[in-house]
């Protein structure tokens, strides 16, 4: 019964994935015959491609910011919206709303908000007399990556709030009641009950957000296309441009192999640290 699925999946997922490894050892412009170059692409990536190194750095910074803030916000909001009342359910529905939009729509909306001349953000800042803060968000190499990170956080925080709410609602209420009887403050309750009990959920949220941030493409493509001067380029946008704008297919494949390795490494590290965390807390 699994036959149709196995067939499509093998032919259009596993086979390309293997082929990708082969391409990564070739130099190929897509027109002339591919040339075997062994590990040359990887050596070049590791030693003499400053741009790619910067792009990996961008992606790591992007991921760190998104993971830290998105997780913190969603945990905070989930603790506020834990009880099922009309208001909290309504707010959860509102918060979740960006998740259903397409990333291109979100990218275009935020391009308008960030517009240095008539965008909503700068108009608001100027109206509050904060002219010096009205910057060229997407057009400045210093801010473009962070501006996109903010958009990403806006986009997916609501989804993570829902996951946290589901996780936090599993925590037995009598734990909090007992803590309250003992006179524990809200912060103590959070630190000693919510945080340790929510660790498994945090593991899920962090893992999902991390992978999502390493896969990010659409927002960058629709907001800055990696610019200015590659300041907001991420790994997937780099793979896309190397292949379909510079026609270096082999080199782009090598970059995508690096992406797989980075994702696997990060996931493995996270699993390890979170598991150690459980050990200590339990």
């Amino acid at each position, binding site marked *: 019964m*699994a036959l*149709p*699925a196995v067939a*499509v*999946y093998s*032919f*259009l*997922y*596993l*086979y*390309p*994935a293997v*082929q*990708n490894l082969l391409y990564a050892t070739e130099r190929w412009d*897509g027109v002339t015959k591919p040339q075997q170059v062994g590990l040359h692409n990887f050596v070049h990536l590791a030693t003499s491609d400053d741009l790619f190194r910067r792009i990996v750095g961008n992606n790591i910074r992007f991921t760190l910011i998104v993971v830290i803030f998105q997780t913190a916000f969603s945990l*905070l*909001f989930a603790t*506020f*919206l834990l009880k099922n009342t009309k208001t909290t359910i309504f707010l959860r*529905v*509102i*918060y*979740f*709303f*960006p998740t*259903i*939009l*397409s*990333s*291109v*729509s979100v990218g*275009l*909306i935020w391009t*308008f908000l960030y517009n240095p001349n008539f965008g*909503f953000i700068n*108009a608001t800042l100027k109206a509050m007399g904060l002219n010096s803060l009205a910057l060229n968000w997407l057009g400045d190499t210093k801010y473009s990556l962070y501006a996109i990170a903010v958009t990403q956080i*806006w986009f997916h925080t609501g*989804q*993570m709030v*829902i*996951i946290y709410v*589901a996780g936090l609602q599993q925590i037995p209420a009598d734990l909090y009641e007992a803590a309250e009887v003992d006179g524990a403050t809200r912060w103590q309750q959070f630190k000693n009950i919510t945080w340790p009990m929510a660790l498994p959920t945090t593991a*899920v949220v962090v893992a999902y957000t991390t*992978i999502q941030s*390493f*896969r990010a*493409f*659409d927002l960058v*493509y*629709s907001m800055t296309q990696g610019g200015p001067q590659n300041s907001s380029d991420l790994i*997937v946008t780099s*793979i*896309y441009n190397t*292949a*379909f704008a510079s026609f270096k*297919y082999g080199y*782009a*494949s090598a970059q*995508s192999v690096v992406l797989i390795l980075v*994702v696997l490494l990060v996931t493995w590290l996270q699993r390890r640290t979170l598991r150690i965390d459980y050990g200590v807390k339990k």
Partner: protein
Amino acid sequence: MYKVFKNTMLSIFALAVIVPSSIVVLGAFKKDNEIYSNPLALPKSWNFNNFRTLIHEGNVFTPFKNSVIVSLFSVAITLLFASLAAYGIARMTTITGRMLFMLFSLGLAIPGQVNIIPIYHLFVKLHLTNSLVGLILVNIALTLPISIFILTSFFKDIPKEMYEVAGIDGAGHLRIYRSIALPLSRPALGATGIFLFVICWNDLLYPLMLITQLDKKTLPLTLIDFRGEFATSYSMLFTAIMVASVPMIAMYIFMQRSFIAGLTAGAVKG
């Protein structure tokens, strides 16, 4: 203190969602200068001029139709293939079942984005570029692993006795799949279907690479084109965003629960 902090934070994020959304909805009924001067004000007159222009000049109907075709077929076929495979995996206690599961789990470890180059060359060879069928095939392949993952866990939750009783009554696997597994997991199928629909409807990367012909473009591609075409006209862009988002918003309003369940199941199980 706590109350003030809580309410402030909650209001700020609610506004952060509501304000941009309102700008888009209101903007779709405004002229450009109205958007630039005061994006949150109500339009001077409510009319559908922007929508009319978009349909005539932007020819938005074709990409809309393409997106509907691609998403519906992708979701239907993926659900069929994935549920068949998931049923097999859930019922097979032998090594084959576990091997199959491992095989599909591999797909969760390798991000689908890394396959763009081999897929592109394969599709050029098979004449599947500029083809909606090609997009549907890619969508199926990309979403099978996660769908199988979600559905297997649901099929495993169905009490074993249900399957066994049917087996004693002489029902074959296909029959048990159709009359027991599927009906009992209808909410799961619905939620997974919505999750898949959102992915297919919003996908940019693969269409961007595989589609160049105007009459084969999907909505996200058309939105990207509009950005260039109407670079200075946010009223047109906002109208296009409205058109592209309306099916999702309608589904979200009517099927909120399955929507949220589906999109979070995708995250948790993945």
